[in-house]
């Protein structure tokens, strides 16, 4: 196996100047940091490990946003060392990853700004082999600044859909842009997308050539209570370089907020339940699942899904932030069911995520526990059950700095989740099968957000549980 890493050498600079007479020719060469390739032979290959000399085995990288400054730091997860720190353009940012996990996406909603930082680890498909690259993290000059109020960023299968809410005060409209890692690399000037003629707090789910995106009707027609929330979903189809509205789902979804998708379904959170869109070829059929009693007068506003997970997880909470109700949603049987497990007293959930291949669901709570769930089949029905808890902090959680919380990200190339602890100023690596902390990345600041970057591992075919 080959392993690439970059030596942190003191910059070695050689400058050579050649000058010749008449018809001047001058050459200046400055040597920069070299790229070092470590070569190791590994003869006991596993069955699935087809080493052809082009792939890199690395745990990946971690982008960390500082809570007290506008800086993003990049760490090498193979040796937990700091690679590079970037100063960001704006002060208030969110952090996420690009669809293929090469770039860190820095979004600043208030500044109408989306920027990208190359994590430096990526894979290219060269036809006859996969070719991995490892370079230093580098700020990309690519920026998206034309949309107004970028809010919901959804990635799925190599695509990122950015939903720009627009702004009623300034009269700017909502829009969607869809991009891939390749668009960021090649700085694609004009991205395909949707342009609305009104603002809305909406969401768009990219699905290959389809894009399911919300539609806000005229206030007189809209069934939403908060009119800024859309109440319809449109199916947009990409051809000839643009998205075209081909279908508007006939089932309405008042006060739509939150969406997720798996291989066959896209679900949306509505004020009165869940809207399920089922893909059948180029057409989607729609169906509403009304809220179960446990949801009460709250509404499901966040939904989590995974390509390979049959069921979705929905989180219902009141607008005032009352106690959250967590439900599972089975789109095939159109059923909603309350999760048996409940948060401990005094705990609130601060982050939710599926694991890389969808076999685990993670709930990080405010007391510093990472709750790991697995799906189990009972009489043909999937139930999510708690596998265990990992206490990720030894600190007194009441000393959590004002406005901060624990945060997490999931590595896409193994069984690890990373949890950032602003009190201890470190990030711990949690093995999701062993439910143990295996290492930590020391920071010199309190982290406000983290995201994993690197080369995602391809799914293995068989899933026998």
């Amino acid at each position, binding site marked *: 196996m080959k392993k690439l890493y970059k030596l942190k050498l003191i910059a070695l600079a050689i400058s050579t100047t*050649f000058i010749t007479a008449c018809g001047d*020719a001058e050459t200046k060469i400055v040597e920069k940091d070299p790229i070092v390739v470590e*070569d190791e032979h590994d003869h006991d290959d596993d069955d699935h490990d087809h080493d052809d*000399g082009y792939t890199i085995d690395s745990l990946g990288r971690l982008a960390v946003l500082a809570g007290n400054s506008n800086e993003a730091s990049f760490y090498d997860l193979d040796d937990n060392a700091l690679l590079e720190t970037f100063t960001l353009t704006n002060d208030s940012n969110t952090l996420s990853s690009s669809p293929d996990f090469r770039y860190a996406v820095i979004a600043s909603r208030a500044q109408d700004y989306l920027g990208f930082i190359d994590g430096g680890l990526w894979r290219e*498909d060269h036809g006859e082999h996969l070719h991995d690259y490892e370079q230093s993290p580098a700020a990309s000059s690519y920026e998206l600044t034309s949309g107004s109020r970028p809010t919901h960023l959804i990635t799925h299968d190599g695509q990122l859909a950015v939903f720009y809410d627009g702004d009623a005060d300034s009269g700017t409209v909502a829009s969607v842009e869809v991009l891939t890692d390749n668009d960021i690399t090649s700085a694609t000037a004009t991205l395909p997308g949707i342009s609305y003629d009104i603002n809305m707090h909406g969401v768009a789910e990219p699905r290959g050539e389809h894009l399911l995106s919300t539609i806000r009707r005229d206030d007189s027609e809209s069934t939403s209570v908060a009119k800024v929330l859309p109440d319809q979903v449109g199916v947009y189809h990409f051809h000839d370089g643009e998205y075209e509205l081909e279908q508007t789902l006939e089932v309405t979804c008042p006060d739509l907020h939150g969406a997720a998708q798996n291989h066959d379904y896209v679900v949306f959170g509505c004020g009165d339940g869940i809207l399920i869109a089922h893909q059948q070829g180029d057409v989607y059929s729609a169906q509403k699942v009304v809220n179960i009693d446990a949801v009460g007068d709250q509404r499901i506003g966040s939904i989590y899904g995974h390509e390979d997970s049959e069921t979705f997880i929905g989180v219902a909470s009141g607008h005032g932030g009352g106690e959250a109700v967590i439900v599972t949603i089975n789109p095939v049987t159109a059923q909603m069911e309350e999760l048996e497990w409940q948060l401990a007293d005094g705990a609130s959930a601060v982050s939710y995520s599926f694991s890389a291949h969808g076999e685990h669901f993670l709930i990080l709570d405010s007391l510093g526990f990472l709750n790991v769930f697995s799906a189990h089949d009972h009489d043909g029905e999937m139930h999510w059950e708690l596998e265990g808890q990992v206490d990720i902090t030894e600190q007194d959680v009441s000393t959590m700095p004002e406005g901060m919380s624990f945060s997490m990200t999931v590595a896409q190339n193994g069984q690890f989740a990373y949890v950032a602890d602003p009190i201890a100023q470190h990030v711990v690596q949690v093995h999701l099968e062993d439910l143990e902390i295996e290492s930590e990345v020391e920071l010199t600041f309190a982290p406000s957000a983290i995201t994993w970057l690197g080369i995602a591992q391809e799914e293995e075919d068989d899933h026998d549980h």
Partner: protein
Amino acid sequence: MKRRSQLAVLIAALLPASVLASTIEGVILNNKGKVVTNATVEVEGSDLKVTTDENGKFVITELKNGLKELHVVAPGYAHLHRDITITNDGNQSVTFNLKRSPIEVIDIEATPIHMSAMESASPVSVLSGEQLRRQQAATLGDSLEKLPGVNTNFHGKVASTPIIRGLSGPRVLITQNGLDVSDVSRVGPDHSVASEASTAQQIEVLRGPATLFYGSGAIGGVVNVVDNRVPTDSTTRGEWNLEHNSVDNQKVASFNATTGTDSVAFYADAFWREADDYEVPVAADIDSDGEEHSGDYKVENSNEESDGFTVGASYLMDNGFIGLAVEQFNRQYGIPGHTHGDEEEKHSDEEESVFADLEQTKVQLLGEYNLDNKWLNKVNLRAGHTDYEHAEIESGAVGTTFKNETNELRIDLLHNQFSEWNGGISFHYKQSDVEAQGEEAFTPPSETESFAVALMEERHFGDFLVQLGGRIERVTIEAGNVLLPNIDAHAHDEAQETDEHDHDHEESAETTRVFDVEHEFTPVSLSAGVVWDFTSNYNLGLSVSRSERAPSASELLSFGPHIGTGTYEVGALFDLDEDGHLGLSDQAIDLETANNIDLTLRKTQGDVGFILNAFYNQVDNYYYQIDTGLYAQSGHDHGDEEELADEHDHSSELPVYLFKTDDVVLHGFEAQIAWQLTDEFKLDVFSDYVRARLKDGGDLPRTPPLRFGSELSYQTDKLSAHIHVTRYQKQDRTAPQETATDGYTLIDASISYDLSVLNQDMSVYLRGTNLTDTEARVHSSFVKDIAPRPGRSFALGIRGYF
């Protein structure tokens, strides 16, 4: 002397002054005393231009006093220059006699001073009109290959580019309306030129150094494709063409049209072409052992599909014009021979085909303004922006993407005649960003910027025309990430060691060194030429030049596999050390300098005309690739490591070629004789030859062989027919590792008939090429062993004019 006495007679024939402004009236006759209609009379150094009416008469009004040089041009006749001194306000009446020229004389458009095949000190040729339509092909190289001194590098018919006097690549500049065509065809022989002949109006070739007008990249010559995309007048006219070709089932459609109002002119053109793999008379691969083969032989993966359009508009003023044109050019073509590593039926029987998908957007702004100024009389403006991209696609995935973004600006300021000197000064700025991404990205991203000032002047001294010029240029090349990987290049003759070398890098570190490179060059070019009309109907031209060229980014900075040439290319910035490792070169990077002498003897008029050129060009510091004898992994295919113990398979490895410099001498000749046998029959004979050798012994690779040929034409009002025979001799002056190529004879014929349908002029034509269906392998081609020329083919087409 004769000319002077004629002039005296003309001046004696002065008519009494009748108007205040000076006027010249005249009539133009041929040598049989018949009037010549539609001849153009131009006053040099001004925008005044008139054509003769049906009585052969012309009138030029509003002339100022002083010496005027008139230039008379008519198709089929030699150009005529006459000096007329205008004194006082008044009229002059003149009679000009034109002599026949069997060699068509067309002025070059893209130089600020007057140049044509018959009249300039350095050699030029122009392909236009019917001849261009007859010879146009899918690629620029194939379109021009019948011109003396020009050969094609024949890359399987799909990506051929021109070779001028044995030079091509970064030494031959290709321009569109005087602005760099800005593709990546100068970097690899398998990269197509982003320009189209079927919508062009004329194609000009400047043989030998032309750096004066075009800068560094033109040290070997220039090909300028001219069209009317920014129209200079609004006369409604146009042309359309449909053609089918049998050998590759090629279908072509094209048109161009110009129209407008008094003050605004519009132009549009478009073309579309589609061709399948072409047929060849023998098995395409020279090594195939004549196995039974059913059906026709074809060159696999030589199909092509392209289309494009241009729209332009200009604002016409009394004193000039300014206009803008936008072109979109798309081309998809298979790259024959672009196969990979060990595909030898090990994995599948299916041939992996590689094709290129090329796309270019070109914006040109052209303008000309005639000033009424004490010093200046004309300003020419040319500005261009091009955005080029081509992707090489293998098994459906993009392998390598090449990009070139170029901005260019050229301003020529032409001065008023100054003690009989005509000429001007030219400012030229060009900036291009070139990058390649993917596995064949053998050149790192770089930015090249150049700024130049050039001066060109000409003057008649009696029977002598003197042309002088100089240019100074500043070229910078910047590349921030030049990579020097440790590629473990190794020789193949140590067969035993190859087994070991792959097992000893357990845990060993390989380092890729990274450099930030900046080059700055100041090439200077000087040229002097003289044309002497030593006796009537003949002239002798001599041109001497010293031109310098800044090496291109790919010649300096390359490091990687170039599948198009089947080599691992390493730029001149690097060199082999004593241990055979590649490191930074300690040789200074220097300019390439060409010292060129051109001698031309012409017979300019009469029933027999000829042009004989001889040249001697010594190029010091010539950048070229040498075979290091080492091999490196192509990075393309990596056999399973376990199999190394077996027969080591070299097919995924490429020979390492290193750019070095050496002194080179090129010399040769071009001869062109035309004989108007009768009014209908004309015989053309031509020959050319170039010898390209290293000063210290040895030959350069892919040098075209000696060639001679003839064309017999028959032309009446309605019918025209041509038979063209070209003999290519065997080339056995070869570089090391290069094989000799057999000679061959190609016979082409064409016939065309003009007819008028619905008040439209049309012509129907039939053209046959390679009529004897002979095996013809092009020595100057990189793929000569796998892609011979097409076999016998018939093209049927129709063309219309309005």
